[in-house]
């Protein structure tokens, strides 16, 4: 069990920014929400999926909407807990745990706020193992976990209940209500039992965030290269991951546009000796990296992260700027995210890319 406190909160925030792979929304507000709970004396217990009882019944809670709105209009705070209670009411059964749907960005911290409010433990596992833009992009779907009942709620406790035909439809419908709710709403969905949690989620991702965050800080304090330390650490993570430094360079060109509500863009990096070029595309999060216009070095769902060359600080796509010195790091995802069914949900083709998935470690 991990207990959150005001000191390791910083590590968590930095680690979730890493796992957000360029998107996921600014974790700053989420961090402040948690800080407020901890200062009130609230506790947040985080338990490993290996420790859960067979009668565990958990609800996924999250914030849906536009990061710009979230930055202006932080939520009421109690509403996500209310959304969860609404789900309980509909299915007639109480939850005894909370699940994060996402390991990166603001939705990695929000469930911990609900954990503080409800006193329920938060399970150290999630449905994305990183950040993804849409609700159906979760490993839960590999095990056919139902997204229903899908409850959305705003700051006035106005509630919408969806009984959708599938998770993609749930995403599509709730997103429309989200706009009418002022561009942001709180969501509870994907109720899960112990078996489903054990079998369909990505395990130990909160712990992963804590560890990534603390080792970036430690590397800075010890004057070591944080990026090197992250790569070394990945082999020791649980389950073991492969970390690769794909490229060191500076941003040479940046293109951005918004299509159907997604921020799409391309970042071109030039190596410091001017010889090589790396193209990294993003669709909210980074989706693939291609060397010298001919070789794809990494692709979704494997993580592609942009880190400040010197400090190792994760950089979001919003704050990319011409001339920035950046290291691009790729990290393999656990096997559960690489099954055929999973890749249909969030592999390259799900993002409209014209190629099939090749695992990071198979690309030489």
């Amino acid at each position, binding site marked *: 069990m991990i207990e959150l406190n005001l000191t390791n909160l910083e590590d968590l925030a930095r680690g979730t920014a890493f796992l957000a792979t360029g998107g996921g929304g600014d974790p*700053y*507000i989420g961090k*402040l*929400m948690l*800080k*407020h709970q901890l*200062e009130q004396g609230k506790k947040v217990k985080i338990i490993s999926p290996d420790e859960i009882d067979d009668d565990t019944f958990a609800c996924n809670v999250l914030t849906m*909407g*536009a*990061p*710009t*709105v979230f*930055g*202006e*209009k*932080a*939520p*009421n*705070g109690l509403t996500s807990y209310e959304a969860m209670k609404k789900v309980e009411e509909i299915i007639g059964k109480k939850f005894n745990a909370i699940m994060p749907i996402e390991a990166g960005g603001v939705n990695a911290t929000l469930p911990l*706020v609900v954990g503080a409010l409800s006193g329920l433990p938060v399970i150290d596992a999630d449905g994305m193992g990183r950040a993804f833009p849409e609700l159906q992009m979760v490993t839960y779907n590999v095990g056919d976990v139902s997204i229903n009942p899908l409850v959305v709620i705003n*700051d*006035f406790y106005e509630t919408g209940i969806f009984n959708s035909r599938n998770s993609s439809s749930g995403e599509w419908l709730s*997103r429309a209500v*989200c*706009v009418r709710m*002022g*561009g942001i709403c709180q969501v509870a969905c994907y109720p899960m039992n112990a078996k489903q949690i054990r079998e369909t989620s990505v395990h130990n991702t909160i712990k992963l965030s804590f560890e990534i965050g603390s080792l970036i800080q430690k590397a800075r304090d010890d004057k070591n290269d944080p990026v090197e330390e992250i790569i070394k650490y990945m082999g020791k993570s649980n389950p073991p991951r492969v970390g690769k430094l794909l490229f060191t360079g*500076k941003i*040479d060109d940046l293109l*951005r*546009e*918004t*299509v*159907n*509500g*997604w*921020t799409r863009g391309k970042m071109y990096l030039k190596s410091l000796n001017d010889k090589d070029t790396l193209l990294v595309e993003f669709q*909210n999060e980074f989706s693939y990296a291609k060397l010298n216009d001919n070789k794809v070095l990494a692709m979704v769902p494997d993580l592609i992260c942009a880190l400040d060359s010197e400090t190792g600080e994760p950089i979001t796509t919003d*704050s990319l*700027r*011409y*001339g*920035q*010195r950046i290291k691009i790091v790729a990290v393999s995802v656990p096997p559960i995210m690489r099954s055929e069914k999973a890749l249909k949900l969030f592999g390259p083709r799900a993002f409209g890319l014209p190629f099939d998935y090749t695992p990071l470690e198979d690309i030489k």
Partner: protein
Amino acid sequence: MFRIGVDVGGTNTDAVLMQGKEVVDGYKSATTEEPGLGIIKAVSTILNRNNIDTKNIESVMIGTTQFTNAFVENKRLEQVAVVRLGYPATVSVPPCIDFSDNLRKIIGENFWIVNGGYEFDGRLLGDWTTEEITKVAKEIKNKNLKYISISCVFSPINEQQEIDTAKIIKEHNPDAIITMSHRIGRVGFVERENATIMNSSLGKLADKVISSFKDALKELKIKSPFYISQNDGTLMSADIVKNYPVLTFASGPTNSMRGAGFLSKKNNAIVVDIGGTTTDFGVIKEGFPRESAIPVDIGGVRTNFRMPDLISIGLGGGSIIRENNNQVSVGPDSVGYKLDKEALIFGGKTLTTSDITVASGDANFGDKNKVEHISNDLITKSQNKIKNMIEEGIDRVKLNKDDVPVILVGGGSILVNGKLKGASEVLIPDHSDVANAIGASLAQAGGEIDKIYSYSEMGREKSIENAKNDAISRALQAGAIKDTIKIIELEEIPLSYLPSGSVRIHAKAVGDIF
């Protein structure tokens, strides 16, 4: 007619005498506890030695870091009443949550989160009522709080609730000094509210400092109007600064950059300010510093107001040089103000960048004999390293691949000799030691806006027109002359996860004051 530019910094108070576009004279003196005294000393010196009658002074412009320093040092700050309009939203993040413990103690816990605010599309959020605000106004009165901060969700889109709230509070508290967030920052609530609270906390000091400036000018028998420079390099009348001290927070680097641009007659350039310990790199675009797009921390508090986008590296005239395995490293540590004791040329024991510059013959100060033993190899390697560091800094602040003029200012500019990669030309202007005061004297006023528009409803052209007009009317309010106002910045940022056509527009207009 003449103008006077003054820069009141933490250590020095500089004054310059300007005639049209000419720098007549400049003088540096020490900053005093009562800032007006330093001003009197510096200004009277340049007036006397140039035989100028104060009748011929048409205006005085002052740049100051007094407020920045006070905030960073947590000194001379006041308790603040924080009124937030946004309930039932925002309660998960109470005011001042990320301030240091010490600051929180000073500001106090006088918070009211009341019904109100707007949605991103301009609809009403909570139900704002006169009754609720009146109740708050009375509680503020009972608590005897004078400095009040009002922050409303999405006030950059609609400021009406902040204005209405301020009016009611003022009715019950006639002495209240009120700051409204829409006057301070842009979209990004926590950062904007933070800056508003910071501004309120400086209310008493602002009154004192501005009075001290006024007294100084009175003492000098200068009757012309005086202005204070704000973060973006434009000017505000002194009476406005009294209410918005926070808007001067970054005026120091801004003035130095604008002064550098003016002295070298460049409107678009990179300014490299090489001091004793650090070098700052910034960009001037159309004569104004490029602003930072990401939140800026001041005294540990995250804000989002208008700050020049600077990067700083540990390179200066006092940076320490080390040789290790045939590799040369420069900085980031420096002997700092002890240069005149610790550098080799001054009889010290530490090899610094200044020693290398003297040894190479590029500059002549201190005792050259003390650095004769330095090998040509070490000189070349060190100079190459310094040059690389500066070239990398230039490249990091550049907007695109094109070469641009580079202006070097500050005492450390002697470290650079010859061409720099990425620079179309390298300029070292005269009077660069008083660039800050010169920057302050460049008289322009500006206005800006940052709002979310719906292109699907209003159309792109009409939205942009609307944004431009709002920026222009704010520049007019700030004192700019109508015919001289130009739009110098226009930025459209499409928003993700919102209906296609929601775009945030940032527009900025500036014009001459005279």
